């Protein structure tokens, strides 16, 4: 079930009359006039609710000799709320795209011809910049401090600050052997 359909389903079910109709149909299939009598609503109102319910595949209809009967769509209700929540969100893709666009904007603003113009004051922006610099380090390889400084100096003169910030942001790690790029 798509996120859009899930919202339609929840909105449609947030109505007492429609829930009562579903409860009645859970007992047995019924036609409009019988539901109207049962719920003390006009047949037109019942038809209106049934239309809404069929739009979200909550009910389906079939013709018999005299009546159009309505029944519950079991498949729609077999889906659990947890299934709906766990489903990949359309919004997640959009968020990822927005995040990507923001990253590009920050990189374009702070880098010029591959050189870092200034170290961003905002932590979020600095993190993006540091991640970009971290791409210059091969994963799994151990670098001496001198090698690290040379690589960073290609981007900015203040390699000490950047090196320390990369450690504190856990983009790089170090021990007695030297420095290496983390998997973050």
């Amino acid at each position, binding site marked *: 079930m798509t996120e859009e359909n899930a919202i339609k389903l929840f909105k449609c079910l*947030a*109505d*007492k*009359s429609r829930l009562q109709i579903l409860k009645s149909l859970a007992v047995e299939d019924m036609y409009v006039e019988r539901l109207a009598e049962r719920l003390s*609503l*006009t047949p*037109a*109102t019942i*038809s*209106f*609710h*049934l*239309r*809404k319910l069929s739009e979200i595949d909550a009910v389906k209809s079939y013709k018999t000799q005299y009546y159009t009967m309505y029944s519950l769509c079991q498949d729609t209700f077999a889906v659990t709320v947890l299934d709906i929540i766990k489903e990949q969100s359309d919004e997640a893709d959009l968020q990822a795209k927005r995040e990507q666009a923001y990253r590009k904007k920050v990189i374009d603003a702070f880098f010029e011809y591959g050189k870092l113009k200034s170290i961003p004051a905002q932590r979020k922006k600095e993190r993006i910049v540091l991640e970009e610099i971290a791409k210059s380090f091969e994963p799994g390889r151990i670098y001496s401090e001198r090698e690290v400084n040379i690589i960073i100096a290609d981007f900015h003169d203040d390699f000490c600050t950047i090196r320390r910030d990369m450690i504190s942001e856990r983009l790089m790690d170090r021990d007695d052997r030297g420095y290496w790029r983390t998997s973050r």
Partner: protein
Amino acid sequence: MESERIETFINYLDQRTSSIQEDVLRLIADDRRDEANFEKIRANIFQIVKTILQASARISQEESERVGFLETKLALFQETWEGYLRKAKEHGDDLKIVQEQTRLEALAEIQDTFQKTWR
């Protein structure tokens, strides 16, 4: 100064409006928002008729002329809304069917009281 019958009729329209508005609140509290919206349509008809009756004073001060004016309007509404209902049924438009039926129900109730008051 309104005539006694016009005043009584306006009181009737006001009472029905407030009674339906209470129904609207009750339906909302009962999580029946769509039905509450249909009742708002019903209440609106009573308000419209009241407005027409009050506005008829600009046409004439004579009760008979004002009542005649209202009667014509009510008949016009009936014809128009019956046409809308017919079209809604032709197109299987369930929402419009309920809306037009609600309007016509309110109108029938008003016409009934109108007949009892003046005819």
